[in-house]
């Protein structure tokens, strides 16, 4: 299982590089789809069917929205000439990445090994008594709508906010003409 997981992760990383480096925005978006769908498979491998269902549908819809937006506008990524600004940015980016990576590798050694999840504290109650306390067989549903229902209100509000924001921003005239 670990091998297949690593292979999927490598696929995602390759997809990410292609998505960022391709000159055509449409193919970039399709490569982004690779990452999203690989993530769906990983969710299934990691025993998270709820996430897999939501991820696959969200991914599809996101792609539809992104593709529609690109088709409405332009597909071309303007060719980037190599100038000093670009090189400086490139070096800054690389330095950021390397420093962050070294710090992360050092820190991750102190985390529990993958698959052990020894430090269950909050979740222990959910697993042992979730069914008895809430009556929901699906423990994820029990967590998101009962134990952490308040978070879910926040999450629904985020979606609501962004829809109101989108409708507000897509007005053509913002100010009344005096």
């Amino acid at each position, binding site marked *: 299982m670990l091998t297949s997981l690593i292979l999927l992760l490598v696929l995602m990383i390759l997809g990410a590089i292609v998505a960022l480096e391709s000159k055509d925005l449409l193919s970039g978006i399709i490569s982004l789809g690779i990452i999203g769908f690989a993530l769906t498979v990983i969710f299934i491998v990691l025993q998270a*069917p*709820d996430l897999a269902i939501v991820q696959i549908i969200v991914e599809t819809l996101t792609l539809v929205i992104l593709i529609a937006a690109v088709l409405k506008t332009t597909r071309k990524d303007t060719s980037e000439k190599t100038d000093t600004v670009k090189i400086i940015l490139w070096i800054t980016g690389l330095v950021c990445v390397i420093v962050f990576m070294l710090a992360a590798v050092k820190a991750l050694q102190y985390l529990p090994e993958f698959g052990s999840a020894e430090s269950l504290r909050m979740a222990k109650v959910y697993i042992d008594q979730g069914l008895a306390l809430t009556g929901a067989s699906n423990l994820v549903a029990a967590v998101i709508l009962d134990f952490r229902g308040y978070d879910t209100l926040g999450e629904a509000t985020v979606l609501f906010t962004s829809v109101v924001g*989108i409708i507000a921003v897509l007005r053509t005239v913002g100010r009344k003409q005096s």
Partner: protein
Amino acid sequence: MKGMTLIVKQISQLMVPSIFLLGIYVILHGHLTPGGGFAGGILIAGCFVLLVLAYGSDEVKSEVRKWRASFSESLGIFMFWFLAVLGLVQGSYFFYNIIAKINPGHPGQLFSAGIIPLCNMAIGIEVAGALFAIFITLAVLKAGEKL
């Protein structure tokens, strides 16, 4: 946006009712099986999106205005908020699962887990409205058109 060919129209006509039913099933069984309000709501939004893509926006648009995607969104989230505040009104806690405390039902059955299925329904309505509104505003409407 123009519609697609006759084949696409026919197939989507066949598919849409079953996707819609699947969405409702996923919402209603959210507390028993994988899925829930979000997954189901997105499925329902997806079947509207399919209709728009297949038939073209011009034919659907007059219908769209009647559906009032953003209205159903507000209504759904308001229902969810109401369920949350209901716990407060009963003298106890925000998000208190009153129904489960009064009548727990049998775990594993459709009518169980108190307000969880109701919350799922509210979220389903909200998400379906929200995503369809996003799709319509971003992909279909031209600048300046109102939802």
